[in-house]
């Protein structure tokens, strides 16, 4: 120990390796950060390239406007995607009808009425609900909700749109509830106090002050939930069936875009067949749907954000 600490520091400062590390690390980390961007590019390229190949075999017009989806027919294969979109929309519609009232009610209850203790119990339960794998929800739809519905409405078939629709709804309740609650809780307490001090009931505060002030966040949560419902795969694969239909029937078997991709992936559609390429065309359509929803949600929550 003949040297002072300052001398030792001065010696180590001169080392080249240290300077090199300091210069290289940001570059390396930047490369890692680009992986997420590359993933997006990868998804878009994959979908676009394979979809373009698909359109060399099937006309774009038929795909967009065709009302028959009959890919497995050897003689007369038809690729009109509308039945798959209709199937997806049926599920989404039921899910939203179930989830929006319950999710927003729960959000209002948690942000306006619940005591801290109640909130401490309910929020983790909602988190559990949000963490359950969709395959479990699918099993629940198939083995519990469908038989239950059949016992009440005998005309409902084993595979139908209602049961998976309800269960997708249950799945997205936590999303709507927690995002809407976040939006409502960010309305400052002082504003609520102002309304209460004028003799408002809590219900009036919720309906006339909090919900209107948080409306952009609430709408964004619903739009994100719709996006999630559109992309949901396992619940519909298990419980909705595999019959692409272009009609308004909810009681019988249907098929969604996601379920079609699963159906083809499970089978042995050989690489290079039209059916193989069709899952990319369907996936691309699905991607566009959810992307539009996500951008819309982003736009709504940014554009109409309240400043207090």
């Amino acid at each position: 120990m003949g040297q002072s600490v300052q001398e030792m520091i001065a010696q180590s400062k001169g080392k080249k390796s240290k300077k090199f590390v300091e210069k290289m690390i940001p570059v390396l980390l930047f490369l890692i950060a680009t992986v997420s961007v590359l993933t997006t590019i990868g998804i878009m390229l994959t979908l676009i390239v394979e979809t373009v190949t698909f359109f060399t075999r099937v006309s774009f017009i038929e795909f967009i406007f065709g009302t028959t989806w009959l890919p497995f027919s050897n003689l007369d294969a038809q690729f009109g995607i509308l039945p798959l979109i209709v199937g997806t929309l049926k599920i989404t519609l039921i899910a939203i009808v179930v989830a929006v009232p319950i999710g927003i009610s729960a959000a209002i209850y948690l942000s306006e009425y619940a005591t801290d203790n109640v909130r401490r119990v309910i929020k983790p339960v909602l988190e559990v609900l949000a963490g359950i794998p969709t395959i479990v929800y699918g099993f629940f739809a198939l083995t519990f909700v469908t038989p239950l519905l059949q016992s009440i409405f005998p005309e409902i078939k084993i595979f139908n749109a209602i049961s998976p629709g309800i269960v997708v709804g249950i799945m997205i309740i936590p999303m709507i509830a927690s995002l809407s609650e976040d939006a409502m809780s960010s309305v400052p307490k002082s504003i609520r106090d102002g309304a209460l001090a004028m003799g408002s009931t809590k219900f009036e505060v919720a309906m006339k002050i909090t919900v209107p002030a948080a409306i952009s966040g609430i709408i964004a949560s619903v739009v994100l939930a719709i996006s999630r419902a559109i992309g949901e795969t396992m619940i519909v694969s298990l419980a909705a069936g595999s019959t692409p239909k272009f009609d308004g029937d909810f009681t019988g078997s249907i098929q969604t875009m996601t379920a079609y991709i699963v159906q083809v992936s499970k089978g042995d559609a050989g690489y290079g067949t039209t059916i193989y390429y069709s899952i990319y065309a369907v996936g691309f359509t699905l991607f566009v749907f959810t992307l539009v929803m996500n951008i819309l949600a982003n736009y709504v929550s940014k554009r109409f954000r309240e400043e207090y």
Partner: protein
Amino acid sequence: MRYIEHDIVVKRMNGRNVVNKLFKSIFLLATLSALLALVILLYQIVSQGASHLSIDFLTNFASRFPAEAGIKAALVGSIWLMLVVAPTSIILGVGSAIYLEEYAGKNRITTFIQMNISNLAGVPSVVFGLLGLTIFVRALALGNSILAAGFTMSLLILPVIIVASQEAIRSVPGELRDASYGMGATKWQTIVRIILPAAIPGILTGSILALSRAIGETAPLIVVGVPVIIQFLPEGVMDTFTALPMQIYDWSSRPQQEFQQVAAAGIIVLMSVLLLMNSVAVFIRNKFEKRY
């Protein structure tokens, strides 16, 4: 002149209070109905699956006969899958988060990366399956191996880990940073010795929750071609395998009633794994909470 008659206000008050109470009950009932759904779901699964749950179920391979069907290959396969997903996604996720929080300037590229991450989080998992099928299974010729499925899953949960890690890093108090710089530490030294240790509980909690999502995901595995009937255990990351949700999906979609019980038993195993992972996350969160 007065506009507001207090007598009338008082008379209306009763009605308004009734409306308030009524809606409070409605909101509470709606909240409870969501909780009830959870209770019914758990009860259904336990009541159907408990009878089939046994040591044999854990040590048997899949079988055509419901009574002999076991989950060994799927359970081991899921563990293998996590061995690939955990390091891949955490290195990529934490690295991205460090870059975005500590190095990236406030410029268009950063905004673009950030926006891209939030959009990527909204892409359906089945679409990630298509990406994995094209890039990992075919283009890189990894086939339907653990590695191909693991990379696909890693990209799927990457946005979740990035966002959680960013929040953890952001919550490290600025004074700690300043104290380190104040002693002449370099940026990288500060990150490795001060920021990461302080942020690690948050990063771990977020990562475990993301991994528990990956372990329950089914759709991407189906699309990359993970098989179901596997009678052997994988020995390396290039082997084919099956996973818990794949096995459950297969059993659920069989028509025989007995297989429903096997599926329920499989779900109990899957949920137990998830419960274990979540408990670890909650434990870490509570243990390291509020240190500054």
